[in-house]
């Protein structure tokens, strides 16, 4: 049986992630693609804890913990240090949606504008999961979180971070999903060898926060792509948009929503509204895709 993804494991077992954690699967794939010549900067997020307590670590590559908003800036500094020392090492900021979409957005924008030579990864579980599932600007419309209770679920749309990054005209942007590891690993391998700032958004379902049985993590990640909610794409220089997976027959969003406790309060009207928004966003995206 020929394996379609690299065989070697870089991460060791024994991490303290929840059962079925999407972000842990994402790290496993990312490290397979990046290899040992990698340094991770990790701000406050689930991975701060998943790696394990001092003096233990699970990733087997250097991991520099950073303050919440500073993963990008710290990565830029580490890369500058390595350039002075003549070391050609991948410097990767591995961040949650809280750090990227909200508190650290300024630093991400700064690094992007300077085109600092770092790979910036956001594993998106759509809320501040490490502190117990409070809403972030990545939380989707109408979702329940502890700060958007069912009496008043999230009113605003999920922030379009991909368009924000594209506006910075950085060399490479991609979206990836843990349900499509071959696509994800190919993108990480490609990004690894590009100079300048690269941004990859990884869709990571969270059983603890989204309220579903942990076995469904990969299925949900797949459904998100198959319903065009989370299209898999690449953008070169902020201007050349390309889909890396075309869905011939998109699934209705209801199939995805119904599996999650955080959408349990939605009625038919809500689901229809969400379906419309997914289709509208998809049509807008199609206009950007290069023919």
């Amino acid at each position, binding site marked *: *049986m020929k*394996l*379609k*993804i690299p*065989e070697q*494991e870089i*991460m*060791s*077992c*024994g*991490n*303290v*992630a929840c*059962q*079925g*954690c*999407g972000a*842990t*699967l994402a790290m*496993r794939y990312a490290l397979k693609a990046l290899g040992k010549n990698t340094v991770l900067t990790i701000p406050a997020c689930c991975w701060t804890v998943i*790696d*394990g*307590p*001092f*003096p*233990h*670590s*699970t990733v*087997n590559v250097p991991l520099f913990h950073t303050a919440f908003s500073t993963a990008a800036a710290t990565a830029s500094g580490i890369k500058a240090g390595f350039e002075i020392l003549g070391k050609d090492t991948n410097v990767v900021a591995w961040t949650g949606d809280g750090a990227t979409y909200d508190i650290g957005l300024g630093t991400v924008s700064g690094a992007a504008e300077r085109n600092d030579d770092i790979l910036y990864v956001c594993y998106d579980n759509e809320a501040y999961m490490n502190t117990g599932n409070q809403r972030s600007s990545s939380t989707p419309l109408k979702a329940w979180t502890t700060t958007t209770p069912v009496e008043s679920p999230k009113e605003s749309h999920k922030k379009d971070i991909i368009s924000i990054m594209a506006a910075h005209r950085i060399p490479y942007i991609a979206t990836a999903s843990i349900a499509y*590891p071959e696509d994800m690993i190919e993108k990480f391998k490609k990004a690894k060898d590009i100079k300048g700032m690269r941004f990859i958004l990884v869709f990571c379902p969270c*059983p603890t926060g989204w309220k579903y*049985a*942990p*076995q*469904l*993590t*990969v*299925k949900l990640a797949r459904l998100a792509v198959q319903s065009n909610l989370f299209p898999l794409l690449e953008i070169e220089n902020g201007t050349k948009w390309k889909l890396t997976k075309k869905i011939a027959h998109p699934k209705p969003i209801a199939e995805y929503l119904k599996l999650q406790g955080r959408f349990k309060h939605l009625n038919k009207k809500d689901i229809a509204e969400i379906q419309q928004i997914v289709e509208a966003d998809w049509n807008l995206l199609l206009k950007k895709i290069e023919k």
Partner: protein
Amino acid sequence: MAKKSDEKIIYKKEKEMPPSAISFYSMDYNKTGSWRNFRPVIDYEKCTLCMICWKFCPEAAIKLEKTKKKGKEEVKPVIDYEYCKGCGICWEECPTRAIDIEEETD
């Protein structure tokens, strides 16, 4: 290489510690297998050796066991119960339904 340890290290003396919180040890002392309520069991009669279970395990707790049979290398997925957290992704994703979920008795 990360140092191995049998259990979580707590430094007993300040002099033994690194100058700041630098981690030298691996996490593999932490046998997350004890977290399970349910355990996945592979039925090798139904297993087609597609390795999808190995691919999707977040813990990398499914190992590829390689054996040589009649000069040919054979690979089969083997669940490492020391670390398997019992999330059930392998059970859900297996295309031939070759993985059963049993209640954990340990």
